[in-house]
């Protein structure tokens, strides 16, 4: 069963083809790893799926519905949740309120309910000190808050764009555990990371993007031994 299907997606920026004819399928309840060299088009793909950019051609089918033309906020409400590679949290709200925004508008909850849900999610992710001003958060806390925010919109599919970049191993492990737990609640997840160790540990399946095209797809072991992937992305290391 696929939750999200992408058919022949192309997105250009002026002369640059950031995505060219990408096909992709997210199967229910899996964790898909999306990797590829810098500038391969991973973030662009997330942006197109979540409706920040419209594609030049191709279709996006989510939960059986064609959402290619839907605006971003509608997609969010339908159940596409995402995080941002470059996070700009709302400085005027505290941690809890930032998370609340997700539940308020993503699932249309009332204020009280939104607050309760946000608290639940923060607790679930181990975010304490939630009444705090967000200027003083550590990177880990910001990343968790970003995740909490996405979770609060109650997505069916969650796109995590480099959520673990900048974390050390201990911290990354903690987040990996969390992502697993989230999946166990019935969500479908797509993670973008550059740390192969994380991809290896976390994902069920891996998809490799290079210059806007899918160059490999399969289990981690298969993909990581693919010579094209090695030359374009991994290098001789690992």
């Amino acid at each position, binding site marked *: 069963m696929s939750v999200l299907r992408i058919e022949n997606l192309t997105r250009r920026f002026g002369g640059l083809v950031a995505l060219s004819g990408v096909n992709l399928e997210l199967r229910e309840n899996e964790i898909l790893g999306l990797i590829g060299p*810098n500038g391969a088009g*991973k973030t662009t793909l997330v942006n197109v799926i979540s409706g920040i950019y419209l594609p030049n051609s191709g279709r996006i089918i989510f939960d059986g519905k064609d959402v290619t033309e839907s605006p971003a906020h509608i997609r969010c409400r339908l159940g596409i949740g995402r995080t941002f590679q470059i996070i700009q949290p709302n400085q005027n709200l505290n941690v809890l309120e930032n998370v609340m925004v997700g539940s308020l508008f993503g699932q249309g909850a009332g204020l009280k309910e939104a607050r309760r849900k946000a608290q639940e999610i923060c607790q679930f992710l181990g975010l304490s000190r939630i009444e705090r001003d967000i200027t*003083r958060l550590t*990177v880990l806390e910001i990343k968790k808050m970003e995740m909490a925010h996405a979770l609060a919109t109650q997505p069916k599919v969650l796109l995590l764009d480099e959520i673990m970049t*900048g974390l*050390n191993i201990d911290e990354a*492990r903690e987040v990996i555990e969390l992502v697993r737990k989230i999946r166990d609640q019935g969500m479908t997840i797509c993670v973008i990371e*550059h740390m192969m160790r994380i991809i290896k540990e976390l994902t069920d399946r891996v998809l490799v993007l290079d210059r806007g095209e899918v160059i490999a797809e399969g289990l981690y072991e298969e993909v990581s031994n693919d010579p094209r992937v090695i030359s374009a*992305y991994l290098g001789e290391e*690992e």
Partner: protein
Amino acid sequence: MLVVKGVDIYYGKLQVLWDLSLQVGKESVGLFGPNGAGKTTLVNAIVGLVKPANGEITFGGRSLLPLETHRIIREGVAVVPQERELFPFMSVLGNLKSGAAYIPGARDKIDERMRFIFDIFPVLKERLGQLAVTLSGGEQRMLAIARSLMAGPKLLILDEPSSGLQPSLVSDLFRRMREIREKEGVSILIAEQNVRQCLRAIDRGYVIENGRVVIEDSAEGLAHSDHVRRSYLGL
């Protein structure tokens, strides 16, 4: 070259660095620690973006504390900030030029430096006319590193240079750092989360936790320290 002695730093009432001392000679030095340990704060203190309450920071025997940031940079310190700090609506080329244009001595060597940089990051050459804001996350990181190299610094400070870079580039990057250090005699200070890779590039390293130095050792020593192996190498 760089000597940091007994530095205390506060954000408002919150103290984040406690009596911190460290040195970088003609060598590569790593700076490790969990999130929030104070690495970026230390980097910012060296380049004058935050001022310590106590302590002394000298570079080549000269105190950096009274100098403003741009002066410190002109003294020969180049930095790759954690947040990249590019000029978003300038082209890649403009960003690169700006790295050299205000450093005495670096101005005349722009072409030579560019060649060197395109050798490390060939992608940047393809993107030369593109506005920095439209680059991908990793490309922006490359540009930030490249811009700092344009200055031809005596001391190069990199704050999490590898984050967001593809694996092949990460190992490449650290190899290059080693090269630069050896060939050009640049002192290097790298704050990194990717300790495993970074250890290959450095001579010595410090581990900072909660704003204090907890371990100081050679690269070799760090790689064998229990604490480092457990917390930073995931072994």
